[in-house]
């Protein structure tokens, strides 16, 4: 019996197919409505402003802006934000659009591999396990992922269905990856980290009205993308795109074909218009994917979203952002489960500066999710239909204490239908010790609010539910994080970024055997570790970046808990990870780029994965300004390795050769 329960737990923890439930909140009776009424908005305030990449003021990026755009940029903010990354009191890493291209990444997860502070493991042809600072699984639930301010984690399990986040990477301006809690500004789920994908303004893509990309490979059988962009009237610009891809099935580690080939098509648009102080953005995407399953009928995934954003600068130097989006997704995994989810979100954010020493952001948000699950014989989400509401508000003040010393104080407040009210305060201190050194310290609290999987999951799919009977009393998982970091520009061409963290978790999810068997908050634990990034420019034509991550995690059972996984159900994490990237401009036309990564063994007894190393090489040739060719070879070192999962079902990834051509007119 215990074995069966274990199987269900594993299913819960490891099967990507299941998890997909949003932050559901037990329908409390609007107690906090009054409180939130004045400040009606959420926290997706991912604060565009929050972290600026050095690229944001590079000559190359400025050159792409129109004169109108240049005239609208507050240079004190720019210079402040240029330094903002350097002076951000958090562990942050930025992947630039150009780097994504040079990595040869063909999907968002592949691009994310380059962030040293993320553990990115491929599970099969379409599924990935991605987390920061531990707790990785295919249903990892402590990471907040935003695409242009749109949250893409599903309230089914507080995680991300990576297989439907198929942004056109050519359009990505940068990806900000923050490890550590960011709950104050970003909101619930930003427990261990935040991934913030920011796409280019359509004025920028309008400079190349036509973009076409085509690629073929051994595994990435076919990729095709087309984008058409242009200017609209005096102040507007637009782009539209469509892409299609086909990926071959992987093979099982134990041998044999995994029958997980899949294909997808996505199309979308973006409009940007308005005057300098009054910008409007409207964008949307639709997609349809189809994936093979070993035994049952194909998995089908469809969906779409539309987002509108208005940014208004007031003469006082204050800024107002209003954002709203609607997202619909449909997923059918025959014989396992299906889900239709609609999300409506509204956010408002206001930023102002008082007396030049207080930089204040306040915001509020509302999100309504309507979820319908198609249950199977094996498991059921009950009730199958559920509507949930989430109210959030936040306030943050960055105070300039003295020259070079900043104190950030803030908190986010939320109310969800499952666990009611929660608060996520933080305090951060940053000290610019000299022009080339920055030190920071922080203490923050973050919560992972309950999702449907924690509360509503029953197994088998019909009574009696002898494996699992939901988690009626499941409450938020909590984290108190202590962090510190040091950035040092040792030489013009040698840069260090170092962070240490100590995380105290409480009320982590456990699987109590019962009777009745339920999910509870029976685990607690600590995780500590370090992240180090070294950036060097060996020569103007040769840039090397190395990243190392160390993690120690200890999870224990509370005295009353009898967790069937004995604390190992929540993630399978390596202690060491190393990656090294090298970007060489051989000549003006030729690029030679390489990436090496080492991932230490994953320890969990039932899903142990041996350590592996992978080396990828890319050769790029740009014979003219409008055409570029690229050849990518992945996994040069070995014929195959596994990255995640239990031995009986996990997949192996071998060598890949991929050639592509891009035309930009």
């Amino acid at each position, binding site marked *: 019996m215990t074995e069966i329960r274990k199987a269900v737990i594993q299913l819960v923890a490891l099967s990507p197919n299941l998890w997909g439930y949003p932050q559901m909140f037990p329908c409390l009776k609007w107690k906090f409505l009054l409180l939130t009424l004045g400040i009606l908005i959420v926290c997706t305030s991912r604060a565009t402003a929050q972290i600026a990449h*050095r690229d944001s*003021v*590079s*000559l190359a990026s*400025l*050159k792409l*802006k129109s*004169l*109108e755009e*240049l*005239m*609208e*940029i*507050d*240079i*004190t*903010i*720019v*210079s402040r934000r*240029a*330094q903002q*990354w*350097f002076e951000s009191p958090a562990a942050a890493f930025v992947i630039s659009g150009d780097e994504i291209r040079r990595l040869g990444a063909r999907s968002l997860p592949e691009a994310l591999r380059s962030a040293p502070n993320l553990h990115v493991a491929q599970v099969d042809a379409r599924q990935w396990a991605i987390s920061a600072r531990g707790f990785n699984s295919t249903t990892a639930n402590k990471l907040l992922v935003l695409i242009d301010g749109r949250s893409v984690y599903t309230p089914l399990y507080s995680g991300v269905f990576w297989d439907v986040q198929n942004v056109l990477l050519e359009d990505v301006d940068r990806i900000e990856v923050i490890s550590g809690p960011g709950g104050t500004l970003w909101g619930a789920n930003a427990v261990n980290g935040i991934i913030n994908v920011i796409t280019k303004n359509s004025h920028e893509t309008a400079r190349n009205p036509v973009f076409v990309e085509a690629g073929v490979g051994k595994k990435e059988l076919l990729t095709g993308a087309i984008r058409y962009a242009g200017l609209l009237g005096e102040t507007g610009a637009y782009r539209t795109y469509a892409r299609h891809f086909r990926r071959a099935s992987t093979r099982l580690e134990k041998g044999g074909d995994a029958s997980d080939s899949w294909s997808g098509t996505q199309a979308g648009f973006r409009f940007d218009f308005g005057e300098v102080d009054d910008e409007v953005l409207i964008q949307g995407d639709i997609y349809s994917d189809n994936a093979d399953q070993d035994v049952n009928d194909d998995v089908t995934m469809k969906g779409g979203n539309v987002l509108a954003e208005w940014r208004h600068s007031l*003469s006082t*130097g204050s800024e107002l952002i209003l954002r709203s989006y609607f997202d619909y997704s449909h997923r059918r995994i025959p014989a396992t489960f299906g889900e239709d989810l609609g999300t409506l979100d509204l956010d408002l954010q206001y930023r102002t500066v008082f007396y030049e020493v207080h930089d204040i952001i306040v915001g509020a948000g509302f999100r309504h999710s309507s979820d319908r699950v198609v249950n199977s014989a094996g498991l059921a989400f009950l009730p199958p239909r559920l509507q949930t509401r989430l109210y959030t508000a936040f306030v943050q003040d960055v105070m300039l204490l003295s020259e070079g010393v900043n104190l950030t104080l803030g908190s986010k407040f939320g109310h969800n239908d499952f666990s009611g009210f929660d608060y996520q305060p933080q305090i951060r201190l940053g000290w610019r010790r000299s*022009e*080339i050194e920055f030190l920071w310290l922080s203490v923050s609290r973050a919560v992972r609010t309950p999702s449907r999987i924690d509360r509503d999951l029953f197994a088998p799919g019909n009574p009696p539910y002898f494996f699992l009977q939901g988690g009626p009393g499941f409450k938020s998982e909590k984290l108190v994080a202590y962090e510190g970091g040091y*950035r040092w*520009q*040792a*030489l*013009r*061409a*040698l*840069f260090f970024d170092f962070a240490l963290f100590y995380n105290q978790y409480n009320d982590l999810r456990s699987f109590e055997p019962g009777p009745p068997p339920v999910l509870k908050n029976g685990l607690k634990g600590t995780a500590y570790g370090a992240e180090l990034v070294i*950036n*060097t*420019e*060996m*020569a103007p034509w040769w840039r090397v970046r190395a990243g190392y991550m160390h993690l120690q995690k200890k999870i224990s059972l509370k005295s009353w808990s009898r967790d069937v996984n004995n604390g190992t159900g929540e993630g399978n994490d390596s202690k060491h990870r190393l990656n090294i990237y090298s970007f060489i401009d051989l000549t003006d036309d030729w690029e030679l780029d390489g990436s090496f990564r080492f991932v230490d063994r994953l320890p969990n007894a039932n899903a142990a994965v041996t350590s592996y190393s992978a080396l990828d090489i890319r050769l790029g040739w740009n014979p003219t300004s409008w055409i570029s060719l690229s050849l990518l070879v992945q996994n040069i070192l070995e014929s195959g390795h596994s990255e995640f999962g239990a031995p009986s079902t996990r997949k192996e990834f071998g060598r890949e050769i991929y050639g592509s051509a891009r035309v930009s007119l």
Partner: protein
Amino acid sequence: MQAHKTHETIRSRVKAICATAGFLLLIVQPSGMYAQSASEVEYRFKAVYLFNFLQLIEWPTTAFDSDESPLVVGILGKDPFGRLLDDLLKKERINERPVVIRRFEDYEDVEKCHLLFVSDSEGDRIPAILRQAQQRQALTVSEIVGFAERGGGINFYIENNRIKFEINVDALRRADLHASSKLLRLARLVKPSKDG
């Protein structure tokens, strides 16, 4: 045998590369690739503005010796851009013409150029500089208060922390330069002062 030798060669080359890399790391001068000062940011912007001006202003064909002649950007006085302009404009072609940057210490040294950036350091000699530039059909650009009113072509100013520019339309006309309507629309237009 052969393989062993090859191995040795590779090893010695790797050593050489490591040594070179180490040496490079030691000699490169400090100051930040991330740490940018406010003024550095300001001149990044101004450099990009100049790049835009070059595209939005039309010089008469008589200003060039031939169709292949380069567009010459001059900087007079203490150069606030450092290598920014060189980085920005190298390899650029504007209206099919390559761009060349020249630096002049004194206005009397100024040779033929199409756009002349007059540095702050030259504030005392504006009338003489302008007189000379006008003869040469050069577009003068500066960041000295009152530069455009006194007869300069384009002048940067800062308003609400944003970089803006003013244009003296008469000065451009006298130099036989044609500014695009877009440029004129974005600029603050100034009239020459009486004593200009």
